[in-house]
Structures are given as structure tokens and as C-alpha cells.
């Protein structure tokens, strides 16, 4: 599905959302687009507006030509804080989206094990989230989002709270999953490395007010091996370019 962010603006509110001004962005069908920017630039706010959780003060978001007014069942969100229900087991958490969508019980019983398998959670079905490591918890979050078979997957710094090694593993898993089931994927991150390794394109955001500064083509062929990508000339070139763009923004505030 194609996503069009058409001049979206959002004023500062006391609720902790960052301001956005006239954001323009197009996400192509089955593209993996990374939104990259310093913390506080409003990238999370933008993602929530795309999902329909927040209303824009100005402009609009179109998904396949239809304006987003509220969250839709075919768009799934993965949260930085995982957003798992502590009183539900892994299997129940993965089944959550299907259940609230009113899917039939036998259908749920058939789908849930598939995604538990896909995310390497076999054997943990009846564990509770607090018994799992952060990386495992986010696998549950991903499995839950994927289980509803969304056409658009929005990810809000999903690996931001994981340690460096777990993070790289999860990036590889995400690429593997995305290759198996192509979806339009918007991935918000503040890590330049993560954006280059994952993205087809990278939307650079500037802060105060939050706006899209530039969209960079990554042009690194797939399938990608993150290790090889990190060693390539294109990687350092991109990294240098992006950093020089963001540096001004970050430097002004540190």
C-alpha cells in the first residue's frame, strides 16, 4: 500500500507530543522506509498520525488514497516499549490482535503458532512477558503485529531499548521476515546505522519544528548482510552524508 503524508502539521501539546510542520512524505508500496532524526524531532508523533492514533492539526495522511481518520485493522504498530499485556502469556499476547478483530477461534489457533515459530518463540508460549528478556519481548510484539497480516507495518524505535548485540540480531530477523512477507514498512529510528542497514530510503527529519529535511536513497542491493553492509563504501558515504545533515540539529541542543 502507498502512504502519502500530505503537509501534516501538529502543534505542541502538553501531552508530550512534539510539533510537526508541513511534513511531506511518500512511502512506496512494499518499501522499507526509515524515518531518522534526533530525539524530540517528532518522528514518533508523525508515526502516530500515520496510524491514526493522533489527529493532525493540518494536512492529512492517505493510505491507498483513503484518508486516515482512526486506527485501521490492516495497519499494525510495533512499540518501543513493546506494549505487551503483563497478565497475558506469550501466546495470548500474539493472539491479541486477532482476538479483538473477532477472528474465529480455530483460525486463531492455526495462525498464532505460525508466528510464534517465525519469531523463534517456540517453547515460550506459556511464559509471561516479565519472564522474558527485552529482545524476546519485542519478538512477541512483532509476532503480535504480524499475526493480523497487516498490509502496512509501522515500527516506533522497536529496537531502541535493546542492547547492541540483541539489536543487530533483531535487525537481521526483521530483514528476513520482511523478505518472506513483503509489506509497506515505516521504521522510526534515531540510529543512523540502523536506518542504512534496513532502509530502502531514509527520511531525515529536522527538529523544532519537526519536518522532513531530505529523503535519501540507500541504494544497497538486497538481500543484505548487515555485516557486509557496514563494511561497504556506500555505507560510510551515506553515514557521512546523513551525519553532516543531522549534526547541525543535534549540535544546536547539546
Amino acid at each position, binding site marked *: 500500500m502507498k502512504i502519502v503524508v500530505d503537509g501534516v502539521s501538529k502543534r505542541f501539546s502538553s501531552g508530550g507530543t512534539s510539533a510537526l510542520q508541513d511534513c511531506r512524505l511518500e512511502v512506496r508500496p512494499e518499501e522499507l522506509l526509515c524515518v531518522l532524526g534526533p530525539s524530540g524531532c517528532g518522528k514518533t508523533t508523525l508515526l502516530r498520525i500515520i496510524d491514526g492514533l493522533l489527529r493532525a492539526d493540518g494536512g492529512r495522511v492517505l493510505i491507498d488514497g483513503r484518508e486516515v481518520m482512526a*486506527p485501521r485493522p490492516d495497519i*499494525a*504498530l510495533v512499540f518501543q516499549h513493546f506494549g505487551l499485556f503483563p*497478565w497475558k502469556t506469550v501466546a495470548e499476547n500474539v493472539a491479541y490482535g486477532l*482476538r*479483538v478483530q473477532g477472528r474465529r477461534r480455530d483460525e486463531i489457533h492455526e495462525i498464532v503458532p505460525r508466528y510464534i515459530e517465525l519469531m523463534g518463540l517456540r517453547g515460550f508460549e506459556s511464559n509471561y512477558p516479565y519472564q522474558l528478556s527485552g529482545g524476546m519481548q519485542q519478538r512477541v510484539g512483532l509476532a503480535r503485529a504480524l499475526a493480523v497480516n497487516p498490509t502496512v507495518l509501522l515500527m516506533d524505535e522497536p529496537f531502541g531499548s535493546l542492547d547492541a548485540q540483541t539489536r543487530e540480531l533483531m535487525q537481521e530477523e526483521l530483514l528476513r521476515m520482511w523478505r518472506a512477507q513483503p509489506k509497506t514498512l515505516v521504521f522510526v529510528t534515531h540510529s543512523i546505522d540502523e536506518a542504512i542497514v534496513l532502509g530502502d530510503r531514509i527520511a531525515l527529519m529536522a527538529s523544532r519544528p519537526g519536518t522532513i529535511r531530505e529523503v535519501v536513497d540507500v541504494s544497497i542491493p538486497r538481500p543484505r548482510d548487515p555485516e557486509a553492509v557496514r563494511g561497504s563504501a556506500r555505507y560510510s558515504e551515506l553515514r557521512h552524508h546523513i551525519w553532516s545533515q543531522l549534526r547541525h540539529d543535534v549540535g544546536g541542543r547539546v
Partner: protein
Amino acid sequence: MSKATVWDRASAVTRAGLGARLTSPFTVRALSVMIGVAAWEVYGRAIRSVIFTYPTAIARAFAQLVRAGELWFYLRSSLVVLSLGLLLAIVVGIPLGILVGRRRLVEYVVDPYINALYATPLVAVIPVIVLWLGFQTTAKVVLVFLFCVFPILINTYQGVKSIDPRLVEVTRAFCSSERDLWRDLMLPSSMPFILAGIRLAIGRGLVGMVVAEFYTTITGLGYMIVQYANTFRMDRLFVPIVLLMAMGIILTSILRSFERRLAPWLYIARDE
């Protein structure tokens, strides 16, 4: 290192071990209760007063009352009143608490009444209830209900208010219906609060039950207390009192164990 210091150290370790065992919380509590009861017994026997009694006399009276079937007769009527009142308070308090926590409008409409009634010493309204509803079980159940419902309602409301807003966002992102939201988030997340509310309610419910029985029909543990106090049967008078104490302890400790089992994640987070 000389022999003497080694020996000193070894004995110090044994002494510390023994000391630790003697001052373990359980030992101290058990000793304290034993000494207290024994002192009561000795003092009670020594003063030989008509308005005082002692543990063994109470135990004897307990056995007599059980054998005569009297205790069970009064206890049963008390239990009926307590359980009906408590049940009604749970059935009304929890949904109303969630509703008040979820809907601003309902909150503003209802909270003056809740705060006013919760602040009122409910003992004061007993004559009113008796006038309206008579002296029978209905009146007593209503009184116990009034004593119990507020802690349950207010705790449920607090539980709903303390729900992680990020999880509310998760339910919105997945397009959850309001009914599913109650089942998946509101109830389980506020369950520890609700159980704590029920625990408070049991304590208040026992008070309500006894006071209601003081004022209304001639039955129940409350009536037993009045009756034996009027006739100076101190040993029998203490039987329902001790029984009420035991009920309070047993019911609240059952609730406590539920609390731990129903929300293990809370305690894990706290232990770490």
C-alpha cells in the same frame, strides 16, 4: 593467628546463629502471643471479677456454645448477611468503579455522592435504614453493602486511573472495542487494586454486620455480644468477639494470597 582468637570467632558465629533464630520474626511473634495470652490467663484467674474473664474460660464457653448449636445458629445468620452484602458490593462496586474511571462525565456526576457518602460515618444512618427497611435481613444486608461498597468502588476507580496509558494506546492501535478493552486491560490491570479494596471492604463489612446486629433483629454474632454483655456472661461474651477476630484474619489473609497470585508481575518488578 593464635588459638584463642580462632575459638572466640567460632563461638561468636554460633552465638550469632542462635541469636538470629531467636529473633526471627516468626519466633518473636509466637513468643509475644504466648506471653500475652498467658499473662491474660494468670491475671484473669487472679482478680476473680464478674466483668473479666480469661482464655481457658472462653475456650470452655466456646465448646459449650458449639455443642448447644447456639454458636452455629448465630454465626450462620451473620455469615448470610456478610456474604450477601459483600457480594452485592462487589457486583455493584467493580463495574461502577470502572465506569467512573473510564467516563469523565460519569465521574463528575457521581463523585460528589461517593465522596459524601464515604465520608459519612455510616453508623449514623442505621436508624434511617431501619425505619425504611425494617429489622430483617434486608436491612442488614443493605447496611453491610453500604459499609463495603465504597472501598471497592474507590479502589477500582483508582486502579482504572493508574492504567498504563501506553497500553490503552495499544488497544486503540489494534482497534479494540470498549468491551474487549474492559476484559483485556481494565479488569486485569486494576485487579490488584480491586482485591485490596475487597480486603478493606471485609474489615468494614464485619463492623457493619456487628453494628447492624446490635440495632436490628435478635440474631447474629452482634446480638450474642449484646445478650451476654447484658447478663454479665463474660466468658460467653468473648466467644463471638474472638470469632469475629478470627474471621477478619482468615478472610483478609485469603485475599492477600489471592493478590499475590493474581498479579505476579507486580511483585517481580518490585523484588528486582
